[in-house]
C-alpha cells in the first residue's frame, strides 16, 4: 500500500478500533476474466511460519473436543486464557486472524454494482469437514455450545458470531479455517472469496473499472507488512506462476546442450578407455 493510497489513513488502526476505518481503492482490469475468479488477500512480511506462532494452536479444541474447549492446550500460551476464561479458539494464530472485510464493486458508468463474492468452498474440504468441528452438545445453538469461553483478545466478536450462516460459523467458518492454515513463507496470499462465472456467455469479470471497499481492521504497519488483494483465475496447474515453465525450458535446453557435448566427448574419448591401459 503506497502512501498515496486511499488506505493510508488507516495505517495506524488497532485491533479494537470501532468503527473500522474504511477506504476504497479503484482499479481497472485490462482483460476480462473468463473463468471462475479467485479473490485473495495477500500479506507480506508476515511471519506466519514463526516457530512459536505455528505451534500456538490447539487442534483438538478446533476439532470440537469439549474438554479442550474449556481447557486448551498449553501450547496456546499466552493466548490460552483471558481473565480466567479459556479462549476459544486459543492460540496466537487464531488471535491474529485477518479481519478486514473486502467488497468488490464493478463501476459501470459510475454505478457500482456489487459483485457476488462466495465465501464457501475456499477452504480444504477435509479441513472444513474433518479437521474443524464445532463443539458438540445439545442443540445447535453455538452460543450455548461456546458457553464458558471467551473470545480471543484481538477479536471484536466471539467465534460463534463470525458468520450468520450456521454451517459457516464457529470453528468451521471458512475464513477462519483458511487463516489457520499457516503460510509457508512470509509473503503469502490466502483465498478470500470466489467469484463464480454466472453463465457461459459472459466472462466472470469483464474488463473495466472496479472498486474495492476495505474495512481496514488489520494492522500491518507495525512490522512493515503490506496487504494486497489479488484476483486470479486458475488453470489445471493451479495459480499463475511462470517460474516452472521458465525453469523447464532452461533446464531442458541445458540438458540438450550437455547431451550433445557428452555425445561428442564420448565418441572422441570413449573408445580410448576400452584399451584399458592401466598404469603400473
Amino acid at each position: 500500500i503506497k502512501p498515496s493510497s486511499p488506505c493510508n489513513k488507516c495505517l495506524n488502526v488497532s485491533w479494537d478500533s470501532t468503527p473500522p476505518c474504511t477506504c476504497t481503492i479503484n482499479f481497472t482490469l485490462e482483460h476480462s476474466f473468463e473463468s471462475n475468479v479467485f479473490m485473495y488477500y495477500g500479506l507480506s512480511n508476515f511471519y506466519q511460519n514463526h516457530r512459536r506462532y505455528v505451534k500456538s494452536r490447539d487442534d483438538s479444541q478446533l476439532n470440537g473436543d469439549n474438554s479442550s474447549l474449556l481447557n486448551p492446550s498449553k501450547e496456546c500460551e499466552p493466548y490460552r486464557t483471558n481473565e480466567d476464561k479459556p479462549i476459544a479458539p486459543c492460540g496466537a494464530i487464531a488471535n491474529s486472524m485477518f479481519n478486514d472485510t473486502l467488497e468488490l464493486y464493478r463501476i459501470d458508468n459510475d454505478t457500482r454494482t456489487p459483485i457476488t463474492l462466495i465465501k464457501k468452498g475456499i477452504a480444504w474440504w477435509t479441513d472444513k469437514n474433518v479437521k474443524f468441528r464445532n463443539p458438540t452438545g445439545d442443540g445447535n445453538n453455538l452460543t450455548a455450545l461456546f458457553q464458558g469461553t471467551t473470545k480471543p483478545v484481538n477479536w471484536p466478536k466471539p467465534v460463534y458470531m463470525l458468520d450468520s450462516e450456521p454451517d459457516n460459523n464457529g470453528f468451521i467458518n471458512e475464513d477462519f479455517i483458511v487463516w489457520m492454515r499457516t503460510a509457508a513463507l512470509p509473503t503469502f496470499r490466502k483465498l478470500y472469496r470466489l467469484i463464480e462465472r454466472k453463465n457461459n456467455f459472459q466472462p466472470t469479470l469483464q474488463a473495466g473499472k472496479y472498486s474495492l471497499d476495505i474495512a481496514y481492521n488489520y494492522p500491518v504497519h507495525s512490522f512493515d507488512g503490506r496487504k494486497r488483494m489479488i484476483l486470479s483465475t486458475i488453470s489445471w496447474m493451479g495459480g499463475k506462476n511462470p517460474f516452472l515453465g521458465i525453469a523447464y525450458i532452461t533446464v531442458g535446453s541445458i540438458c540438450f546442450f550437455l547431451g550433445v557435448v557428452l555425445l561428442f566427448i564420448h565418441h572422441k574419448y570413449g573408445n580410448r578407455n576400452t584399451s584399458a591401459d592401466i598404469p603400473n
Partner: protein
Amino acid sequence: PCALPAAGRRPPHPPRLRRGESKTRLVRSSLLLPEAEPEKSKRTVLACNRLKTTKYTALSFLPKNLFEQFHRLANVYFVFIALLNFVPAVNAFQPELALAPVLFILAVTAIKDLWEDYSRYRSDQEINHMECLVYSRNEKKYISRYWKEVKVGDFVQLRCNEIIPADILLLSSSDPDGLCHIETANLDGETNLKQRQVVRRFLELDSEFDPLKFTSVIECEKPNNDLSRFRGYIIHKSGKKDGLFKENLLLRGCTIRNTEEVAGIVIYAGHETKALLNNNGPRYKRSKLERQMNADVLWCVLILLIMCLFSAIGHGLWVWQYGEKKKPIFDVPGPDGKYLSPVLASVYLFLTVIIVFQVLIPISLYVSIEIVKICQVYFIHQDKDLYDEETDSQLQCRALNITEDLGQVQFIFSDKTGTLTENKMVFRRCTVSGIEYSHDDNAKRLAMYQEPDSEEEEAAPKAGTLSQRDSICSHQSIKVIHRSQSTKTHRRTGSRAEAKRASILSKHTAFSSPMEKDITPDPRLLEKVNECAKHLEVMRSHEQPLSHLSPELCDVFDFFIALTICNTVVVTAPNQPRQKVRDRFELKSPVKTIEDFIRRFTPSRLTAGSNSSSSSSLATSKSMHRFGLSTLSSTSTDSTLLKLEEKLAYSAQMNNYGYSSQQGRTAVGGTPEEGELRYEAESPDEAALVYAARAYNCSLVGRLSDQVSVELPHLGTLSFEVLHTLGFDSIRKRMSVVVRHPLTDEINVYTKGADSVVMDLLLPCSSDDPRGKHQKKIRSKTQNYLNLYAVDGLRTLCIAKRVLSKEEYGCWLKTHLEAESSIENREELLFQSALRIEKNLHLLGATGIEDRLQDGVPETIASLRKAGLQIWVLTGDKQETAVNIAYACKLLDHDEEIITLNAESPETCAVLLEQCLQCVQSKFSNTIDGATGNMTVGFTPLYPPSSSVLSSLGLVIDGRTLAYALEPALEDKFLALAKRCRSVLCCRSTPLQKSMVVKLVRDKLKAMTLAIGDGANDVSMIQVADVGVGISGQEGMQAVMASDFAIPRFRHLEKLLLVHGHWCYSRLANMVLYFFYKNAMFVALLFWYQFYCGFSGSSMIDQWYLIFFNLFFSSLPQLITGVLDKDVPAEVLIAVPQLYKSGQNMEEYQPHMFWMNMIDAMYQSLVCFFIPYFTYYDSEVDIFSWGTPITTIALFTIILHLAIETKTWTFLHWSSCIFSIILFFFVALVYNASCPVCHPPSNPYWTMERLMGDPVFYFTCIISPVVALLPRFLYRTLQGTLFPTQLQLGRQLSKLSPETRTQLLTELNVKETIRQTQLLADSFSLSLGSNASHCYRAKNQSTPLPASPQTRESLFREHTKAEHKTDQTAAASPQGAVLYEENKLPSSAGSLERSVESLSVGTTLPWSSAVDQEDFSLLKWITSTPLFSHIGTVLQVSSRTCFAKVPSCGRQLPVEVPACSTSLLGPVSNCWDDFAGDFLVRSAGCI
C-alpha cells in the same frame, strides 16, 4: 575362594619373606592341613584357574554397556539433544519422538554387544569345564575336577594327550628317567616335542610320588609372561634347596605326549599362567576409516555450530528489528506474556536450532555402519573361495568392526611356520660323499600330493597300461595292482572320511601324514645301501675289518646311520603312549663318571663281551618289541588296515612309475610292524630324516636313553650305545651324538648341522695326499650341491662323522663330566665341551629337506606385493631356515641384495644399523662403492654378488639384534632401514618381539598393519596389529581366538584382502561419504528456510519426516549399496592387484572429498529448496504442503545421487530404491490420513493426498532432482571418460567379454614384464598395449606379406584358438546370434569349424592354404568383434570395421580359394565354397 587377578594380583607374603616380596611367590601344597597354614586365608587370594574374558555379567550388563556406549561421544551428543527437547523453552519436537531414534540406536548396539559377550562366555565356559585329575585330600586319590576348580598348590595328574590346565611344576612322571614330553604347539606354534624333567630330588625318590608327603615350599618368580624362563627354588623340609628351571615347568595349553602319566603341583593358575599372560588383552580396534570418519564428524559438529550460531544471531537481529514496543502480531510472547529480549531469544534459539539441525550429525551413521559391517562379514563368510576342503574350515570373521581395514593394509607381518609353510618337513634330496642323489621320483611323488584326487583317479587305468608294457613287471606287482584297485574304489568313496581319520590320527602324533613318511628312495642310492649292507654282512660273518669297504660305501653306510641315530627322535606306536621297551637288567645310564667309563671300557669287555652281549640284548629287545607291536596291531586294527591300504595304494603308484619290484615287495610283504612305527621328534626335520633313512631300509626301531636300535637290511638290528647326546642349540647350529659302533667298536661322533658351521669344522685335508684330494673334491662338490639346494629353498643339513680314539674320548670325557657336574654356568661349559669334540669332522654328505610351502604361497606373495603391500616375515625359526623359506616363497629373490644383521651387543647393533643405512642410502643415490668392505667387522654381512645396482633389498635380522634394534634409541634407524627394504625377515623372534615390531611399524610409520599367524606365539602380534589374521590350521585355536579374521590357508589372504578388503573399504568409504552428504543436504534445506521464518527455528518439514527420514526412508538403499556394491568385480581385482593401492592411498575417502561432498550437498539443497520456493512464491501454500514436496524432492535427489554413485546394479539395488520411495509415499499417505487432530503442531492432515492431486507437485519433483544432480552427473561422466581412475578402468575391463579381458590382462602382464626387463622397444609395447582389434588389425596387415611357414603356422594356431573362443561366445550370447544374422553370415561358424577340423587332421596341407584359412578365421574374427563388446559398442561401428576389412581380405580370396579347395575334402570344400561365395558377394556389395 577364587579371586581374579584384577582383585588379587599380588598375593601377600609371610612376613619373614618380606625382603623378597616383590619378586617371588611362595607355593605350598594345598593338601596341608589348614591349621598348619596360618596365612592360608591370605594365600587363597592367588588366582584360581577360572578363565573369564567376558565383559559383563547379567546384572552389570545394562549399566556397564550404557556406560561404554556413552564413551562414544556421538551417543552422548544424541542423548543430550534428546534431553534438550524436554526443556520447554527450546524444544523443537515432541520430546518422546526425539528420543526414539537414540533409544533405537542404543538398543541395537546393546544387542550386538550382548551377543558378542555371550559367545565369549560360552567359549570360557567350555574351557573352564574341561576336566582334569586333581588330588583330593579327603579321598586320598586323584579325582576328576573342572579346570576352573584347580587352585595354586593343587596336585594335578595328567595323562598322555591331555592338555595342561595350568602352569605345573613337574614332580613325577611315569617315565623312568623322569622325563615328560610336551607339545607346545598351542603356545609357540612349534609342533615338535619338548622334554621336561621332574624336579631332581623327586626323580631320585624310589617310591611312587605321594602328594600327601609333599611338604616342601616352592619359591618362584611372580607370574610373568616370559615363556622361556622360569626360576625358583624348592625348599625341602630339611632346609635343602633345589633349583627349578624352565625344564621343570609344564605350561598351560601344552599337551602331554609320549608320557603315560605325570603329576605336579600347580604354580600359576588361571590368568597368571604364562600362556595367558602372553595374551595381551584384546584391544578395541577402531578402523582407520572410522578414525577418519570421526574427524569428519567433528567437522560436521563445527559446521553445525556455525549454522546454529548464524541462526541465533539472525534471530537476535530479527527480534531486535521490531524494537521493544512494536511487537508484531506473529511474534508470540512467552507463556508468561512477556517478550524475550533479543539476546535471550537468540540464546534459546541456539539450543533449539541445535535440535532442529541435529540430523547433520548422522545419528544413524554408527548403527548403519555396524549393520553394514555385519552384512559384509556375512557375505565374506559366504565366499566359497575361502573355504578349504582339506581342513573343512572356512573363513571366520571374528571382529565385526574392521572389515574395511582389510582394504587398506600396507604391511603384512607373517609368521612362517604353519602360515607360509605347512609345517611338514619332507625329505627331498641328498648328497653322499660328493654324489648327488636327486630323488627325482620323490619329487614326482611330492608333486602328486598336490593333486591327490586327480592322481587317484588316474592311477588305476595308468597302472593297467603301464604294467602291460612293463616287461619287468612281475606276477607280484600285478597282484599289487589288483589289490590296489580293489582298495582304490573303497578309497575314493571314503576318501573324505579317510582324510578326516588321518587328520585325527595326525593330531595324536605330530607327524604322520604319508607325505612325510613315505619317501621314494633313489634307486642308485638304494642299490648302494644294499650293496653296502651285503658287504657288511659278509664282513661280519667273516670277521673282517671294516676298512675293506670302499670309502664311498662306508660313507653311505655312515650317512644313514647318522641320519637314523643323530637325533632325539622317539619311536612310538600310534594311539598309544610311548612304550619303553626296556629291560631293567640292561639298564645303562649314560656314562656318568670316570670310574664308570673305566669299568665299561675295560679291554676284556671290549674284546670278549661286545658282540655276544649286544646281539643277545638285541634279540631280547627285539622280541619284546615285536610282541608289543603285534598286540598293538590287534588292538588298533582300524588304523592298521588304513595304513596297509595306504601302503598298498602307494606301492602301486610306485610300480606305475616303473620302480623295481623289490620295493613293492618290501612294501607288500614287509612286516606290518614296520609300518606301525611312528617317529616323534623335537623338530620336524629330524623326523623327516629318520623317515628318509627308513625308506632305505635303515630304520630306527627303538631309542632308549643309552642305546639306539637300528634295523638294517641283511644285518638285522644293530644297537648303538649312545654315550652322549649334545643337543642342538642355535649358536652351534648343530647337534651330535657320541656312540659306540657295534660293528667296529669305535667311538664315533655323528654330527648333523647347518652347512655353514659344519663345513668349517671339517678335518683339514692335505692336498698332496690322494685321499685328501679326494676329500677336498667331495667337499667342494657337496658345497655346490648345498648351494643348489639352498637355491631350491630346501633346508640343508650337513652330516659329518668323527672317529675318536679311546684316549681322545677319555680326555674329552673328563672335561665334559666336569662341565656337566658344575652348577655355575653349566651351560657355558657344556657348550665349550661340545665345541671341543665337534671338530676335525669327516664329511659324509648333506640332505635337503623341504618345509613344504602351502599351496599358492609364492603366487599370493607376488600378488600381494604387486598390490603394494610390504611383507615382513617374523618367525621363531632359525635364520637359515627362515632365509630358505623366504627364497622358496619368493619373498626374497636371488638377485636381491640381502642385508643380514646379527649383532652381539647394542653398540654393535647401532653401528651396524648406521652402516647399513648409509650403505643403502648411498646405493639409492647410485653411488655404490666398496661399501661391502665396511661390513666385515665381527658380523656376517651377506652381500651376494649382484649385477644390478638398483636391485631391491631384503633385510634379515635375528632375534637378539632385533631386541637391540627395538630399543627406543635405535628403532628409528631400524625402521628407516627396514622401510627401504622390499622384504624383511626377522628370525628367532619371541612372541613379544613380534608384537613389538608390529607396534613399532604401526605407531611410527602410521601404517596399516596386518599380522597373520597360526600359533599361540603369534597371538600378541595378531592382537597388536590393526588387523589380525589367524590361520585355523593344525596348531590349535589360540591364534584364531585372538584374531579378527581366521582363514584356513595363507593363500586365502589374497582374496580376503584384494577382493573383500577392497570391496569393504570402497563400500564403506562411499557409504560414509554419502552419509555425510545426505545429512548435510537435508539439514541445509532447513537452514535455508531459517532465512524465511525469521530464524525462528521452525521447519517446513514435518518432524516425523525429519526424524525418521534417515532411519527409514533413505537408509535402505544406502545399506544395500554399502553391503552389495562391487566397484570392480572380483576377477579383475585378483587379476590386477594394483587396484588394491586405491585403498592404501585412501583414494575413495580423502579429506577433500568430504568437503567436495559438503559443497555438493549445499548446492543440491539450494536447488531443492529454491525451486519449490519460487514455484510456490506468493501463493496460498501452507507450511507443510510446501515442506512435503521439498521432502519428496530431497528424497528423490538423495536416492538418485546414490544411483549415480552405485557401481553395480542388482535387483536388490533397484528394489530398495523403489521400495524407499514407495515407502515414503505410503507412510506419508497413511500418516496424513490417520488422525486429523494428532501430531501437533504440524497436523498434516490430508496434505499428501491433496498434493498428489496437484500437477505442480509432480512437475517440481521432476525438475528439482535433475537440476540438483546435473553437476555431479556431469563431473562423473567427464571424469570417467576423460580422466578415468584405475578403478574405473578396471570396471570397464570387467564389462568386456571374458576373452578380451584375458587377452588384455595377459597384455598387461606382458607389458609389465617388458617394463621390468626393459628389453623391448616402445613400438612393440604399444602394439601390445593397444586393444585386441588393433592387435589383430596389425597382424592382418602382416599376413599378406611373405613370411616363413612356421610363423604363419603359429599365427594360424593363434587364430584358430581365437576363433574357438568366438564360437563359444556366439553360442553363449543370444545377442551374438542376432548380430550374426545381421551380418548375413549364417552357417559360417559351422563351416569354418569343420574346415578347421579338417585342417588339423591333415597336417600335410600346403601352407598357402593355411594362410587362406587364416584369412577366413580372421574375417570371422572381425565379423564377430561386436560379440566381444556386445553391450557397449554400437552395431554400426562394428559393421563398419567389418566392411573396412572386407576389401583387403576379399582381394586375396579369388586367387587362393581354388588352389586350396582341391586339397580339401569334398563336403568341407563345398561348405567352404559356399562361404567364400557368400563372402564374395558381400565384399562385392560393400565395395
